[in-house]
């Protein structure tokens, strides 16, 4: 059975009481059951009930995920399984939001105590910032309030909601500091570019900074910057980084136009950002990466696995559940776009773009990016 690690305590994360903890771990393990056990039943129903009919009626359609999804939906089992998956996501937030809510004043007091005044790193918020329209249509992954809800002046409560909720969502499988995906990106980067020694790094869409902080350990000589659209996340990130002894400059900015000077960075990364960017805006983010990089600089991104080209249509149907039922409208669409083509259109040389896999245990995160040409004359290439 998959073993989860408990989340490491830090000054900002409230300690749940006995029943809150039990409720949260039930939500986590319900989710695990939905993801690891129920699909076995779904597959048996498919193999024994739906697939034989599809094969008889239209053999070629049996390999099409859309047809398989519609047939399974019609049959009814998938409605129950994916209805339960939706409920598991709702129960997760139900177990987290009230636990933060009744301690929000406490969380905010600690955020201010750690974040205000002199100390490591910096926080730059933009009171006139407009959250991109594509982030405002739905609350992503059904997190009430999304990333950017502010419930009072200088509020950071959503940071704690996301801190605890994202850890439970990942089934405790991303390390006790919630930073396993960031660490996986760094490992993949080092394998691809063994001589990597960036002096200035930017993390795009950093949320509460859980995947930004491993950069501090991996590149202790570098200056680390991180941007996000959500002020509560950044306040929480800044205080959390200080509590954990990390030096990061946080800034509220749109990932399509961050406001830093041209060629300011040697490395621009993101961690599970792109499946939450409107697919039509992916190119704009790549263009910003290109603009921000010095000649020879690298951009690298880690995101949800590219399961969508699997030859197994039922598998594609199951991994696409978040697109349809978990307020992740861009989840499946991201991988249907030509990411390497978009990187090339953004100005990166064709031969320097890549799209591969960054494994975390057996989990195949997708890993893509490019190196900017060493000479300024690249535009002619």
């Amino acid at each position: 059975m998959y073993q989860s690690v408990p989340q490491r305590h830090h000054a900002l994360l409230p300690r749940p009481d006995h029943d809150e903890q039990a409720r949260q771990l039930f939500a986590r393990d319900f989710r695990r059951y939905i993801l690891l056990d129920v699909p076995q039943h779904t597959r048996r129903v498919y193999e024994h009930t739906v697939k034989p009919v599809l094969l008889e009626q239209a053999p070629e359609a049996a390999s099409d995920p859309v047809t398989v999804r519609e047939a399974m939906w019609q049959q009814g089992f998938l409605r129950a399984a994916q209805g339960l998956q939706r409920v598991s996501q709702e129960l997760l937030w139900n177990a987290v939001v009230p636990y933060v809510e009744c301690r929000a004043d406490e969380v905010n007091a600690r955020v201010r105590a750690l974040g205000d005044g002199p100390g490591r790193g910096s926080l730059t918020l933009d009171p006139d910032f407009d959250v991109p329209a594509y982030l405002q249509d739905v609350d992503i992954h059904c997190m009430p309030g999304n990333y950017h809800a502010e419930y009072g002046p200088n509020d950071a409560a959503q940071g704690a909601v996301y801190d605890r909720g994202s850890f439970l969502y990942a089934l405790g499988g991303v390390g006790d500091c919630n930073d396993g995906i960031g660490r996986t990106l760094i490992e993949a980067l080092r394998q691809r570019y063994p001589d990597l020694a960036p002096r200035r790094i930017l993390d795009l869409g950093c949320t509460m900074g859980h995947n930004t902080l491993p950069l501090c350990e991996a590149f202790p000589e570098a200056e680390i910057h991180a941007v996000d659209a959500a002020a509560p996340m950044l306040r929480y990130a800044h205080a959390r980084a200080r509590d954990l002894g990390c030096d990061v400059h946080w800034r509220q900015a749109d990932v399509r136009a961050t406001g830093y000077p041209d060629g300011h960075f040697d490395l621009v990364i993101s961690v599970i950002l792109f499946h939450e960017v409107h697919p039509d805006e992916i190119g704009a983010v790549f263009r910003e990466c290109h603009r921000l990089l010095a000649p020879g600089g690298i951009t690298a991104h880690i995101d949800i696995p590219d399961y969508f080209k699997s030859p197994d249509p039922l598998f594609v149907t199951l991994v696409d559940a978040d697109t349809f039922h978990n307020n992740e409208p861009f989840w499946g669409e991201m991988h249907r776009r030509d990411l390497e083509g978009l990187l090339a259109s953004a100005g990166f040389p064709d031969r320097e773009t890549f799209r591969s896999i960054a494994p975390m245990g057996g989990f195949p995160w997708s890993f893509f990016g490019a190196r900017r040409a060493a000479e300024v004359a690249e535009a002619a290439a």
Partner: protein
Amino acid sequence: MSATLRLKQTARGERPQFSEHPEVDRVMAMTMALASEVAVLRERLDTMETLASRKGVVLTEEIEAFTPEPEHEARRQQWRHDFLERVLYILRAEADQAAERNGV
């Protein structure tokens, strides 16, 4: 503990309909919310029993402060898994019958 801020409890975005009958979706959600509460209750009893067996006396403060040992937590995780198998038996049963109809 103070609670001057009211956080949003429901996510923005239309909830998908799973059953042809909306009331079935409601029953499903209520059933699982109830299951969650049963799990919470069971876990609290487990904590009480564990503490009682250790000391013979149970104090509320001790219950609130209780953190299971890693092996104990692993047993709880297993229990939650088995509990879900019981509550969601209908899924297993449906798959069993589908297989049986095909002579598997």
